[in-house]
């Protein structure tokens, strides 16, 4: 960026406290017109609070927000929007049953607009999508769009409202590498048109690729502001994490006996996501098996099968050498399968249950937590206290409702719940999604320890780096089909990428489904 361009946004000395916690501590930074600034920080570093202050959801204890030189009134949620600041959230805010155009014009146009107005709106949307390379049909129903396309709709929605500062919260978390590349080219186009962008992310290489400047937050404070040209990913990581948290050192696992074997297993499709198509998979004791793939390619079906939520429609599943007949979640638990679900809020825990109740959720039914249908709350509470102690769950106590815990602490409770049962098989579905680096390393350490104790681990992840670092063998899943097993270090990321895109599977295996 050339010097002397106008300042688009300035946050000065923003401080926000919640009780004893200082979420933002005298945070200051600015964004120039046409500049991309990355806001980098772990979960809990204060990024979300800062954005909530910018959008008037919170009133700061001190400090001011200026947009194009004008100070915004604190705590007014329309002020930032009216001043031309738009945000694309990580979780989209689109109505699935409406078309792209309806979604974009929702809230800026009367619901019953005339045909003429609609035609004008449509023309504008088409123009914008061409100018910014956001290919999406205005008449498509949002419910039928892919995640990447939905994100384009969100960006179009912001552009349609003439935003001049666009904030993207973890925009690539849900995208394939190709979709992420498309997003970056769109952003470059937007910058060329004078738009300013704040890019919130933990992913260092993306930040390096797209941003002009990086502002690093740690524990609510700005700990660094550098131009990407003057830094590298190692320096950024060090800044973001401080001195704590080293990535785990990983020795390869020693494979033992086969604990789970799937032979020619097929399962029905789940909504838009494909089911399994005649897959063969073996999980060995003492080994981490990584399942790589773009989200929505059959991971859910495999997780449901191993976790007891679904039975094989065809083929057989063999557990500890016995062919399974009849299969349920309860049987999975009682057969020593630890299940770490993909969505810890929706399926992993019950938000309004306390820690004790969540701790016994899978095993309340029978010894040691109940006898003849009557619960032993004393025992349950001691179990919860053990987990809190052993797994370092930060909470006021076992009677805390789990809704009040952070994602990392929630995940630790789930880990404790399943690992305390000495499982022989661990199904870890996106176990570190949304966690900060400290919690990520903790979860990985636990999985590796379990592996070294002789457990078979199935690690499902959309993060290829995670899989390449942890897995002893890797399978790629694409459209419900499973690749052969690749040993540690046998494939490069690029080679796995070919399998992930669905190439590499012989035509024959497809027809086997």
């Amino acid at each position, binding site marked *: 960026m050339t010097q002397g361009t106008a300042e688009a946004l300035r946050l000065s000395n923003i401080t926000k406290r919640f009780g004893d916690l200082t979420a933002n501590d005298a945070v200051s930074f600015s964004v120039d017109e046409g500049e991309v600034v990355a806001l980098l920080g772990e979960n809990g570093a204060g990024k979300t609070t800062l954005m909530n202050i910018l959008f008037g959801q919170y009133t700061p204890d001190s400090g001011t927000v200026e947009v194009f030189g004008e100070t915004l009134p604190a705590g007014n949620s329309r002020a930032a929007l009216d001043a031309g600041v738009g945000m694309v959230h990580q979780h989209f805010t689109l109505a699935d049953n409406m078309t792209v155009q309806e979604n974009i014009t929702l809230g800026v146009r009367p619901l019953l607009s005339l045909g003429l107005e609609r035609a004008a709106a449509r023309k504008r949307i088409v123009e914008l999508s061409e100018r910014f390379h956001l290919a999406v049909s205005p008449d498509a129903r949002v419910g039928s769009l892919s995640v990447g396309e939905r994100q384009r709709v969100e960006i179009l929605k912001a552009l349609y409202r003439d935003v001049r500062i666009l904030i993207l919260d973890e925009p690539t978390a849900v995208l394939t590498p190709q979709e992420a590349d498309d997003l970056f080219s769109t952003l470059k186009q937007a910058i060329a048109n004078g738009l300013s962008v704040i890019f919130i992310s933990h992913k260092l290489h993306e930040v390096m690729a797209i941003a002009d400047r990086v502002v690093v937050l740690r524990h609510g404070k700005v700990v660094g502001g550098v131009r990407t040209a003057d830094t590298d990913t190692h320096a950024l990581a060090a800044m973001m994490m401080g001195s704590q948290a080293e990535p785990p050192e990983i020795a390869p696992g020693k494979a033992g006996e086969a604990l789970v074997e799937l032979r020619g297993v097929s399962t029905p499709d789940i909504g838009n996501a494909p089911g399994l198509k005649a897959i063969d998979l073996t999980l060995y004791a003492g080994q981490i098996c990584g399942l790589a793939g773009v989200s929505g390619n059959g991971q859910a079906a495999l997780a449901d099968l191993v976790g*007891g939520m679904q039975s094989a429609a065809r083929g057989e599943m063999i557990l500890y050498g016995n062919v399974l007949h009849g299969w349920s*979640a309860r049987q999975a638990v009682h057969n020593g399968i630890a299940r770490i679900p993909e969505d810890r809020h929706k399926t992993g825990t019950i938000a309004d249950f306390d820690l004790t109740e969540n701790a016994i959720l*899978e095993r309340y*039914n029978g010894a040691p937590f109940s006898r003849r249908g009557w*619960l032993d709350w004393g025992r349950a509470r001691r179990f919860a206290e053990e987990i809190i102690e052993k797994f370092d769950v930060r909470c006021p106590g076992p009677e805390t409702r789990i809704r*009040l815990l952070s994602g990392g602490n929630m995940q630790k409770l789930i880990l404790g719940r399943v690992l305390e049962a000495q499982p022989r098989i661990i199904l870890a579905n996106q176990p570190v999604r949304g966690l900060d680096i400290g919690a990520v390393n903790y979860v990985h350490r636990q999985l590796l320890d379990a592996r070294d104790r002789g457990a078979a681990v199935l690690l499902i992840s959309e993060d290829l780096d995670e899989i390449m670092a942890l897995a002893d063998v890797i399978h790629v899943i694409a459209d419900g089909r499973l690749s052969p097993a690749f040993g540690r270090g046998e494939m490069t990321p690029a080679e796995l990428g070919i399998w992930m895109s669905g190439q590499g599977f012989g035509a024959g295996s497809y027809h086997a489904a």
Partner: protein
Amino acid sequence: MRLEPIRNPSVARRVVPIGLALGATIAIASLLASVAGANPFSVLGLILKGAFGSKFAIVETFNRATPLIFTGLAAAVAFRAKFWNIGAEAQLYAGALTTVVLGTGLLAWPSFALLPLLAFVAILAGALLLLVPAVLKTRFGVDEVVTTLLFNFIFLLFISMLLEGPLKDPMGMGWPKSARVVAEARLPRIFEGLRVHWGFALALISAFVVWIIQTRSTLGFEMRAVGLNKDAAAFAGIPVNRVLVKTALLSGGLAALGGFSEVAGLKGSLTLDLSPGYGYTGIIVAMLALLNPIGVIVAALFVAGIFVGADSMSRAADVPTYLADIMLATALLLVVLAIMLTRFRVVRD
């Protein structure tokens, strides 16, 4: 304006809105009474006097509260698991029906054997009646609100048919009314000389049993889990559909026990006006009690007190008895609003 959740509401935050709601209810009732020509400042006193002012009044309130505790428990149990049983009215009549069928001379058993049998069969009848909507819901996804609600009309017409036909009392001088149950099938009074019968005690015991089930048993744990998050419950291995069916059986049984108690304890026979909508009022009771079984006792006494008290007040002050219905509806709406305000604060943008 928008709502912002309050993380740890203070005691005042939890109590004051409810107090204000009750105060506002009385203010609105007083206003309406004054429109109807009564002295608005006498309304509260007259209601309290009518509900709790004399031995007779208290007995009346207890008797009115008894069926409401049963139907309130029926709703509270079902709603806790998010099974929307709107059919307590029909289930109550089912319990009353089996009581008159078996209790009017068919079985010549002594009291200590006959009463438990009648209670048991009543529970069975109510449970079976709700089993149909429960199975329709779990098997085919049929909305239980619709089925249980419509069952009320079907079942009441069925009772009407029986009372005009096979169950009609030959000595009833043509009224659609069943024969009276035999003396052995009558619930005795708790105290000599007071019209409070053992049905009231049975209601209190039922509330405690439900409370124990909900807080101590695995079934209660399952019901709460299913009600709060079906997906997580299913993932944890809780058999969601089986839990819903068990919940329905318990809920239907409780409502039917109310029917048994009304016939065996109070009325002695079955008529079409056995229940002035106890099944529906039970829903209000359960909501006011925040689905807490012990709270159901308090809420049922409160609602019964309003009914009995407003009835007596309207006679004393010469205003229409509809005032009781208005008061109850106002109390429900305002208390529900107040409960929301104990958990959320209104923020102006």
